[in-house]
């Protein structure tokens, strides 16, 4: 038996230093470390890791090429299944997907699949300008609505099949949550831009500043603008609030606003950029998912003295990726668990100054299998804060559904689509990503975009 080798740690910026800057926290493996890590893989005959990956990346196959030093080959293997590996390697919740299933994880630590994927993608981006073989045009036009991971993946795959694809994006920059939501220190915008350039090189046209439902309806796209099929990937962009007293006081942000001002509009560089943001001394972020961690860590970087995560369940139920929770703690984010605000109070100018909270205890498991938080009567107390960020989830943006009456929706307003094909109640119209599933993950959105591309291709070739 060979001695069990430990997983190679990820080189990272020092927590004390990094909480002062917006540069990427995890620095990435070098070639030697990547090869050492790749050698840990057992090259299983029946690789369980693959089952854990929503797009079924050929994990042992690419890892084998990393061991051999054929990084270019490794990149090709990954890109067969995954158009955006530099992004997935950074933000996939690997501990609940590929790495969760890895056999090495049963007794020790799983192979660092995500880090290897990131290494290969970054290596390729630096070393080669991948050639793109022109494909013969099919003469079919597809409209993709939303330039997030779902839309971009779908667009890229359709372009590879020879269809003429136009992506319509509401904001002035494509990328969806990857650009406006996930912060620079976790996913550098240069990485996202690089992946978008690749999609454009495939022949995809991206029209920014175009809100579908306002500039064009889906019917207009199909009847007047000559599109043969439509993919909707508009995401879950509608922020939820708690509907408690005082919620519209100044200094209370949705996570979307807080992160958009910082990431997309560059408010961290104000007044060198024109969009301001205001962060006080004590920031309370409500929620404990990835979005909440991003907001809490962003608040520190914007100069907050204290940044709190306020969550009504316990540590075990926190939905964020393990790594993000650890990073947040290392940087000094404090966790206030089993409490939730019930009211906000402000000063005479309408700025928030206090949060009235209630304590909770965990009761019986609910439908999601997590133990349900139960309020403890009489446990109210006040917390001094001057900035609040609501990160309690988001719903589907209604602009497209509202202008497309024949699109079937769930009660919550998500589009109903076949999980295998993305087809909706409207012929020729497909949907995928967060607009269908509710807020989920980058890789699931990409998986949905991929499946829909295949189904759209079938639809276009059978319908001609």
């Amino acid at each position, binding site marked *: 038996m060979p001695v069990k080798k430990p997983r190679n740690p990820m080189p990272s910026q020092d927590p004390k230093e990094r909480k002062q800057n917006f540069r990427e926290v995890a620095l990435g493996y070098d070639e030697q470390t990547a090869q050492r890590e790749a050698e840990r893989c057992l090259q299983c005959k029946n690789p369980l890791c693959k089952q854990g990956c929503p797009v079924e990346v050929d994990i042992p196959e690419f890892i084998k090429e990393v061991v051999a030093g054929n990084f270019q080959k490794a990149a090709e293997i990954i890109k067969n299944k995954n158009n955006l590996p530099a992004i997935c390697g950074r933000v996939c919740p690997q501990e609940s997907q590929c790495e969760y299933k890895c056999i090495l994880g049963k007794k020790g630590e799983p192979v660092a699949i995500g880090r290897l994927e990131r290494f290969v993608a970054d290596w390729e981006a630096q070393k080669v300008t991948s050639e793109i073989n022109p494909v013969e045009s099919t003469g079919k036009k597809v409209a993709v609505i939303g330039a997030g991971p779902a839309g971009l993946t779908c667009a890229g795959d359709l372009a590879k099949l020879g269809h003429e694809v136009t992506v319509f994006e509401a904001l*002035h920059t494509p990328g969806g949550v990857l650009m406006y939501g996930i912060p620079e220190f976790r996913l550098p915008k240069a990485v996202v831009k690089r992946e978008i350039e690749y999609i454009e090189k495939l022949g995809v046209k991206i029209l920014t500043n175009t*809100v579908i439902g306002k500039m064009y309806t889906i019917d207009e796209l199909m009847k007047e603008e000559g599109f043969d099929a439509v993919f909707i990937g508009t995401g879950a962009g509608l922020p939820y609030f708690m*509907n408690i007293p005082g919620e*519209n006081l100044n200094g209370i942000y949705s996570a979307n*606003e807080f992160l*958009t001002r910082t990431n997309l509009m560059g408010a961290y560089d104000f007044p060198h*950029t024109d969009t301001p943001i*205001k962060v006080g001394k004590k920031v309370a972020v409500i929620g404990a998912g990835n979005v909440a961690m991003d907001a809490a860590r962003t608040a520190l970087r914007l100069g907050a003295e204290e940044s709190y995560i306020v969550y009504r369940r316990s540590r075990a139920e926190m939905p964020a990726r393990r790594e993000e929770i650890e990073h947040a703690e290392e940087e000094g984010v404090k966790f206030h668990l089993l409490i939730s605000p019930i009211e906000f109070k402000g000063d005479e100018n309408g700025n928030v100054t206090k949060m009235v909270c209630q304590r909770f205890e965990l009761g019986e498991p609910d439908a999601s299998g997590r133990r349900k938080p139960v309020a403890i009567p009489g446990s109210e107390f006040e917390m001094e804060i001057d900035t609040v960020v609501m990160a309690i989830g988001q719903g589907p943006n*209604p602009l497209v559904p509202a202008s497309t009456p024949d699109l079937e929706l769930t009660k919550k307003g998500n589009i109903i689509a076949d999980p295998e094909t993305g087809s909706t109640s409207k012929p020729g119209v497909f949907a995928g990503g967060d607009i269908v599933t509710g807020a989920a993950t980058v890789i699931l959105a990409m998986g949905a975009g991929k499946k829909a591309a295949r189904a759209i291709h079938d639809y276009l070739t059978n319908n001609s």
Partner: protein
Amino acid sequence: MNKIIKQEKLAENLFLLEVEAPQLARKAKAGQFVIVRISEKGERIPLTIADYDLNAGTITLIFQVVGLTTKKMSLLKTGDYLLDLVGPLGEPSEIENYGTVACIGGGVGIAPIYPIARALKKAGNKVISIIGARNKDLLFWKDKMAEVSDELLIATDDGSEGHKGFVTDVLKEVMTKNSLERVWAIGPMIMMKNVAEVTRPEKIKTIVSLNPIMVDGTGMCGACRVSVGEETKFACVDGPEFDGHQVDFNLAMRRAAFYKDKEKLALEHYNCQCGGGSCKCQ
């Protein structure tokens, strides 16, 4: 990128831009707005579509210089481009034949009230328009407003033209002679609030157009939330027009002032351009 095909100074600190945007011109309806960004590091700011011309494929924006972005925008000339222009956003005005209606525009609010008055007139209403400003030099589009109104009344704070006083005084007068079915009021928050107070006892439905701080304009950020009838609404997608009798104006005014100190800093930074001197811009 949208080309500016006409730039005009209407009055001190008041400018008009006519911009190429064929599809927008086709889709725009009275009451809707656009979001503009003029430079790579620039802010996204909302402006009402004051007019649109299908044949020319253009829309018209009218803006008042109040801070950094509008200041920079006032320096743009015919032939320059707007970096980003997105719209038409928001819900259009509810245009029907109501009977007799009043359209009230205060200051730069004359611009957004114009297409609404025009649409109401076209729908068969008797349109009584009241426009007001601090003095006569700040009034604009009198001829255009007269064209789409059955009656055009004017108020200036200093009495340099029309009634000396506020548009609300004129409105009270109009209400004694006419039975109004609906009122539209667009202008400074305080003016809209006061109009709503004048019509409240008579229960005349009064529509105001709110202008909270916005970022995306598509319902994604919640910056634009306002309280209407105790309910939180996003002005960019649920509005910008709301029932003036239900709006919490005090909250709206406090929210609009949140970034005052930062906005001042941005302007100072722009004006000095010292790149690290003794000013507060670092």
